[in-house]
């Protein structure tokens, strides 16, 4: 049974500012003289969107900045109306579009609880009953009678979140609210959201850039791009598509600037030649299978002797989550580097990451730990899923060799040899 129906909805905004008297006057004169009139350019924030959401669904909405996510939520929350198309939502909507919208700085925490609750449509009796719980959730017992202009920003956000999530509504709309507070409070918010979702069976729409959160909470994801519905379906599939799209974008951006490389620092003693990925046969490649051998070759030249330098090669995700790094500092008899060209190979026999896009970083320090060269995203490569990947459990980052014992009988998964996967 669908609770939200969105039918060919478009939302158009006019770019630029509101016409001033001067502009109107100029336009009148231009019209009288038969000249073209200056008009503000329309901008389609949402472009012919159609979908329905069933009761009890938890739907994530993702997409790059400016894709129209917030506009969509505003339309659903009835804050603004579509330019074309129709939109219907059955049931009471609780919009958590911005935590703390409508908090008044001059009022005390207590007064704000009642005010904000009233704005969100919670009756006075209901909020009075929940008051203590809200205050203790927000951890504000001591400060509840202090004007909130004296609160820290974290305190305000905690209060806003605690009030907003005490709404009893059929449809809950959440925009990026979980990205607030310190880690401990985020954890609490997260649990509360899950309780709201699972406990009450409300229909929930979540907008977030934190795809991991979406993956965890949602059963279905809508992906918006330039105001259009780019994908609609199973969470993992759409999230995967989203990762791919943003990686492509990052990739394209990096290739645009300095040929894909980010050189953070160089003392001038080292000139980077190339950073390549090699396959088993030593041929250049851009991808390897999950669990396969990672072989990185870095070519560079040195213009003066570097005695016993420390070389670091590592990997990171496109959003700079550092995955691995290894240093030659562990090698006691590492060689000196004479002036001239050099080649370094870094080999990881089995690189245990799931399919995705990853990057190589590279750094050189001299024997006194002085930074000589550091660079990131020097090579972007993809890991392709191996043959058995689809049969494995979702929601993981690592692919580790595993063995099982069931009722004492050992089993081993038919984890494919890297070679076999590479050929599939």
């Amino acid at each position, binding site marked *: 049974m669908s609770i939200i129906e969105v039918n060919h909805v478009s939302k158009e*905004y006019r770019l630029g500012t*509101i016409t001033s008297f001067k502009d109107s006057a100029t336009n009148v004169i231009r019209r009288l003289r038969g000249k073209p009139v200056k008009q503000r350019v329309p901008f389609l924030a949402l472009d012919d969107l159609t979908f329905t959401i069933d009761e009890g669904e938890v739907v994530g909405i993702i997409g790059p900045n400016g894709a129209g996510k917030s506009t969509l939520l*505003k339309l659903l*929350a*009835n*804050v*603004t*109306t579509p330019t074309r198309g129709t939109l219907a939502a059955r049931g009471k*909507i609780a*919009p958590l*579009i*911005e935590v703390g*919208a*409508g908090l*008044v700085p*001059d*009022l005390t925490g207590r*007064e704000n609880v*009642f*005010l904000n609750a*009233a*704005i*969100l*449509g919670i*009756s*006075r009796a209901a909020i009075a009953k929940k008051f203590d719980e809200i205050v203790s959730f927000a951890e504000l017992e001591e400060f509840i009678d202090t*004007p909130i202009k004296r609160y820290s920003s974290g305190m305000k956000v905690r209060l806003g979140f605690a009030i907003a999530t005490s709404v009893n509504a059929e449809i809950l709309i959440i925009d990026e609210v979980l990205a607030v507070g310190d880690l401990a409070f985020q954890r609490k918010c997260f649990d509360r959201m899950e309780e709201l979702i699972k406990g009450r069976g409300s229909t929930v729409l979540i907008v977030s850039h934190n795809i991991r959160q979406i993956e965890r909470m949602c059963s279905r994801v809508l992906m918006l791009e330039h105001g259009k519905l780019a994908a609609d379906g199973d969470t993992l599939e759409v999230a995967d598509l989203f990762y791919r799209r943003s990686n492509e974008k990052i990739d394209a951006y990096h290739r645009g600037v300095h040929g894909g490389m980010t050189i953070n620092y160089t003392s001038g003693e080292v000139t980077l030649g190339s950073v390549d990925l090699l396959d088993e046969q030593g041929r250049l490649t851009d991808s390897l299978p999950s669990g396969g051998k990672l072989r990185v070759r870095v070519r560079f030249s040195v213009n003066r002797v570097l005695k016993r330098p420390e070389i670091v090669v590592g990997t990171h995700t496109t959003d700079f989550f550092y995955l691995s790094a290894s240093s030659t500092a562990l090698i006691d008899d590492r060689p000196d580097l004479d002036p001239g060209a050099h080649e370094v190979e870094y080999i990881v026999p089995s690189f245990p990451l799931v399919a995705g896009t990853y990057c190589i970083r590279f750094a050189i320090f001299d024997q006194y730990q002085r930074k000589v060269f550091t660079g990131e995203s020097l090579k972007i490569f993809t890991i392709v899923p191996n043959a058995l990947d689809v049969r494995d459990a979702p929601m993981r980052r690592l692919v580790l060799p595993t063995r099982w014992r069931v009722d004492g009988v050992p089993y081993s998964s038919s984890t494919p040899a890297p070679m076999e996967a590479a050929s599939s």
Partner: protein
Amino acid sequence: MFKVIRDIYEYRELMAVLTHKNITVRYKQAYLGIAWAVLRPLSLMLIFTLVKSFVGIESGDIPYPVLTFAALLPWVFFQDSTTEGIGSVVNNASVVKKIYLPREIFPLTAVITKLVEFGISAFILAGLMAWYQMAPTAHILWAPLIILYTLLVSLTIALVGAAINVTYRDVGAALPILLSLLMYASPVIYPLQLVKDKLITQQAAGEWSDLLYTLYTLNPLAGIIDSFQNVVLRGLPPDFSAMAPGLLLTAVLLPLSYKFFKWSETYFADVI
């Protein structure tokens, strides 16, 4: 009509909380607190009384300070509630942009907030009347109705003004000027009787006199202030002939103003 009232009734709790908020916020960090609500009409009364001693305005058998204070009560209520009402939607931009509420809540609570301040000033009027040993008659029961009518007049201007103010802030800028002009066109400093004597009795403007008087009373405040003084001070019923033109005008404009507001409401969040 009834649906509108029912919707508003639905949101009574919210309006109560918002009114409370408006008052608290306004006087929270003021040492004199809500006394400020009284100080303005009181100081205006003193100034007018001072001016009157030079100019000489006929106030009948009512002491001038009481007469002018009784005029200032509905006037200040009208002026403040209109001003506050016109700014109300823009002042609540953060809520308007994020959460849906029927937006007429904002002008409405702005006007009601001023009603509370009016109530406080009314005590001062009672004090003044006691000082001059004037006792009200049963006609004072008209007073709440007259104030309700004033509220509707404010709302008529506030609804359309607030809606336009969202797009063009010129309204907010022009308002103080227009209101101060309107004050002189209303019987605040002088009693309505003076105008009536000049135009109706003496026919000062010749054949135009009656028309001019009707035009003058088309300003709802003319009838409101005069009738308020009648029922509170003079112990007389309201002067319906002075009220009729303004009442008619309000009855026509209020629904139009409300319609315009509801029609504009859809784009508030986009342009505010």
